[in-house]
């Protein structure tokens, strides 16, 4: 068993950024292990990404042909199991993305592999060590994989700097994996979310509200406050789930990724999926009653306070 295999990701013909982030995370750990790093790409159009994936630190790009237009959980599982059989890697790294969440745990379960998801740090000292959040990211846990000769980890997107696409000299090699009759789900179509006439990704100042506003009846008061402050109103997921806010105003992994000059978060605790959508704002100000709220880990300014009291005072200033 040796080597690190990164599984790249694409969607609708485009390479996803997380692929290059994985390469930078993996090339560091491959060096610590003293083992080679290869990057695998799966799909009917896999060959077209092999140039971009030949980044610095990559020794080989492995292409696995799969039928169909895009991701299918059983095909991807078969491909990764085929890669494990063919290459015997000690570590397989994927993004902690919707696609990978859809098959990687099944592969680990079936094959009895080491497994950890949503990992934020990967290292090697006498064996694989990773770090991931615990108790909703309020604590951080370090994990080991005793007795495992091969482990799969899914890495949190947006944590590692992306490697430069195509900066290395790796050659591509095709790995054959039988795929006939493997797929059990059938793709019908893709649908885009309705935009609702507002584009929060263009706003320079977002006032973003979360569960802390407590009640649907409180939404209008924050609409007014946003208007007074010259901000655009956005929100975290729970308010959209509850039908209090339209999905076009949702910030986060499943909503919009925003990068305003100022992101003022009121009553948002900062779940991983939310942080993924706003952590790159120029200035983040967070008001939350819970001093342990994870949003304070990414905020530049924070206040442990009652958001209604702060909102009243902001109203007076505006």
């Amino acid at each position: 068993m040796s080597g690190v295999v990164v599984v790249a990701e694409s969607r609708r013909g485009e390479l996803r950024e997380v692929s290059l982030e994985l390469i930078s995370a993996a090339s560091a750990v491959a060096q610590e292990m003293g083992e080679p790093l290869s990057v695998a790409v799966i799909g009917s159009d896999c060959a077209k990404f092999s140039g971009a994936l030949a980044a610095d630190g990559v020794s080989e790009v492995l292409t696995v042909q799969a039928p169909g237009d895009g991701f299918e959980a059983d095909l991807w599982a078969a491909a990764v199991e085929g890669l494990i059989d063919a290459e015997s890697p000690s570590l397989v790294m994927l993004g902690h993305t919707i696609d990978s969440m859809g098959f990687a745990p099944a592969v680990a379960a079936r094959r009895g592999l080491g497994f950890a998801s949503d990992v934020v740090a990967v290292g090697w000292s006498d064996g694989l060590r990773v770090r991931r959040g615990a108790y909703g990211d309020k604590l951080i846990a370090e994990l080991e994989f005793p007795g495992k000769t091969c482990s799969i980890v899914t890495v949190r997107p947006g944590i590692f700097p992306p490697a430069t696409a195509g900066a290395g000299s790796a050659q591509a090699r095709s790995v054959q994996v039988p795929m006939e009759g493997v797929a059990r789900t059938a793709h019908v179509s893709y649908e885009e979310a309705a935009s609702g006439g507002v584009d929060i990704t263009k706003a320079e100042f977002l006032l973003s509200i979360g569960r802390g506003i407590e009640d649907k009846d409180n939404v209008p008061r924050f609409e007014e406050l946003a208007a007074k402050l010259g901000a655009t109103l956005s929100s975290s997921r729970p308010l959209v789930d509850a039908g209090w806010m339209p999905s076009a105003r949702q910030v986060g992994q499943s909503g919009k990724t925003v990068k305003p000059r100022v992101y003022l978060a009121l009553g948002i605790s900062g779940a991983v999926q939310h942080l993924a959508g706003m952590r790159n704002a120029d200035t983040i100000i967070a008001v939350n009653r819970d001093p342990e709220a994870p949003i304070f880990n990414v905020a530049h300014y924070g206040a442990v306070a009652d958001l209604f009291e702060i909102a009243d005072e902001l109203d007076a200033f505006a």
Partner: protein
Amino acid sequence: MRIVVAVKQVAALDEEFELLVDGRSVDPDYLEWDLNEWDTFSLEAALQLRDALDGDGHEVVAVTIGEEEAQEGLLACLAKGADRAVRVWDESLRDSDVLAVARVLAAVIERESPDLVLCGVQSSDAVNGATGVALSGFLGLAHVAVVKHIELDGTTVTVQRELEGGLVEILTLPLPALLTIQTGINEPRYATLRAIKQAREKPLESLSLGELGLDHGAVAAAAGSRVVSIAHPERGEGAQMLEGAPAEVAARIVEIVRDRMTG
């Protein structure tokens, strides 16, 4: 039709909490327990699917792995309308990782021969986002993760899979199947006081590992990782905290916003 819903009683940290001396877990005295938010949506989805079916004999079974406090979560499921519930516990499961839990769930769900298995996308405490799909691996079931809409038509399910950035994929799969359910798919019901009382009359089975044909060794072999230590995160640069009365904090916020917006 039988729909099994795998649920979890999750732990939230009190504002103040302490770690145990082993450095690997939080002192349970500082934990508050509740049914995982995602599981309230998967249970509701199961109840709605059951209630839309013609004829009798359709049932929703809630299953969980957990000690005494998990009983409350199952009672909540029964009060909301699950027909029966099963809880599995053994002391050796205390530090189980996601694959070990999925292995035990697989054993209890196999006994039920379900047509459909629903799980939450993730739990709010461990946030692995992996239990359901690992379970599909052990059970050999067709599966889709992160589902925000379900339509059942005979032995075929059509689902919407929620992708990043607001994109949705529509796909179909045959029963039996396993789906992991995203929040917002429905509006979870509340139980009436009467239903809460009646829940105690519904069948709630407690099983040991042995009764599932498992032992500690089999579960340990399935485990994918072990926690070495648990600690407060390094705060990095961390937020600069604004102190003082609400008026002072608001004044500082306005000042920062003005500075950044004009800078």
